[in-house]
């Protein structure tokens, strides 16, 4: 039954214009950067910044709007002999999988046709696409949480935008404030803990390590490099990313199972 519903939602997504627009957006951004700077690390670093801003924004806003627009249809499906948990899983997959696929293709294809990608760059592009996919899933799950908890569409979309602002912009501001005011204290380890609280910053840190760009972050970067290149570091970062993907899904599922439609 889950397969039937996921197939249906994906078929619908493939026929819609938003998926094409999403794919074209990343294709144009990547192609534009490649034309400007070639298949270099500089291009990839610029792409990181764009991806870390855009991916959560699209996931949150699109996921929320999609849920509000499809509310009547979700109600109709709930009157069929389908378990709520199955319907939730299919709705999540029906939004997250097409978003992940169109993002991954939009980023990968320009590199593929420009050629000249080394094995190392391939790993870096793969990591970028992988972390973008995790962020997409996390933000879609957060969008589901928002839309199931808030009946008012405008407030729901406002909340989604607020979440994006906090995680993609304000959190960094708070960290910067922490560094500048407490700079004289040994706060690097505390900073590491703080970074785990935000999937966007965690992804940025991992990407900077993979891109050997942590040096740009000075002494803090050295601490991060030491941590993230250790076995414990990999384990902690991986566990934090999985938690950031699983927890919002479980929370959204919990709400969906109890929601009055």
């Amino acid at each position, binding site marked *: 039954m889950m397969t039937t519903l996921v197939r*249906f939602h994906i078929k*619908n997504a493939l026929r819609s214009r938003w998926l094409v627009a999403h794919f074209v957006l990343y294709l144009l951004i990547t192609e534009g950067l490649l034309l400007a700077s070639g298949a270099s690390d500089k291009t990839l670093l610029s792409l990181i910044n764009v991806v870390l801003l855009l991916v959560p924004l699209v996931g949150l806003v699109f996921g929320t709007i999609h849920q509000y627009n*499809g509310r*009547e*249809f979700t109600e*109709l499906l*709930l*009157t069929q*002999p389908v378990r*709520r948990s199955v319907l939730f899983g299919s709705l999540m997959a029906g939004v997250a999988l097409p978003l992940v696929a169109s993002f991954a293709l939009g980023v990968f294809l320009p590199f593929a046709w420009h050629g000249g990608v080394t094995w190392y760059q391939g790993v870096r592009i793969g990591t970028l696409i992988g972390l973008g996919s995790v962020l997409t899933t996390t933000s879609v799950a957060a969008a589901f949480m928002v839309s199931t908890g808030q009946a008012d569409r405008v407030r729901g979309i406002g909340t989604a935008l607020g979440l994006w602002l906090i995680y993609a912009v304000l959190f960094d501001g708070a960290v910067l404030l922490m560094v500048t005011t407490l700079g004289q204290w040994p706060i690097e380890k505390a900073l590491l803990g703080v970074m785990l609280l935000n999937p966007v910053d965690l992804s940025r840190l991992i990407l900077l390590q993979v891109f050997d760009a942590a040096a740009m972050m000075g002494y803090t970067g050295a601490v991060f490099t030491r941590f993230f290149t250790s076995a414990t570091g990999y384990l902690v970062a991986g566990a934090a990313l999985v938690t950031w993907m699983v927890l919002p899904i479980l929370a959204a599922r919990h709400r969906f199972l109890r929601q009055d439609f």
Partner: protein
Amino acid sequence: MENVRKSFGDNQVLAGIDLQFQRGETTAIVGPNGAGKSTLIKCLLGLVRPDHGRLLIGGLNAQHNAAARRLVGYMPQHAEFPGGMTGRDMIRLVEELRQEDRAPDLSLVRTLGLGADLEQPFRTLSGGTRQKVSAVLASMFAPHVYVLDEPTAGLDPVAGAALKDHMAAERERGATTLLTSHVMADLEELADRVVFLLDGRIRFDGTMNELRELTGRERLERAIATLLEGDAA
């Protein structure tokens, strides 16, 4: 339904509803906006969880029970489907979700004149055509219970009459129907029984003739207005 109560925050929407529906009976649920009609229907469909009380369909608990939902055909007031999909896709989906061991009855497709519209994406179809698809989906496995929320809304007179004929035939088959509509002529034509809700309570429950006798009004619209005025006084 036994003593069904539901509140949203401080707002009590259903204040202890007791109702039983007989096989082959068509019941009109009427009342002003905010009376609790939609919540009552949604409780029965498992879309809203009552705070208290019991809802059974064919002896099965209506809440979180796929087997109970297999007995129900639901036609919502506004039929909304994914824009990229077609009526044919929806029929296939419902077929796969229901997993019935019999072929679906798609006679309504011809009766309602759907034909080629079934192959068109929903985003190109009018509200009335989407409503026709919704009627086909509700009836394709001859459910024991129909829940129809404003079923003729948006339908042209020919399709509206065809749907009412279909519902009359379904009643003869033994299907139980719960119906809400603001088109009183539809209710007069289809319903055997009227349940009048006000502020989440049943204020009248009886046959059309009993309602006419009670209010001294021949037309349903007038009779309900009289009930409302009586309540206000």
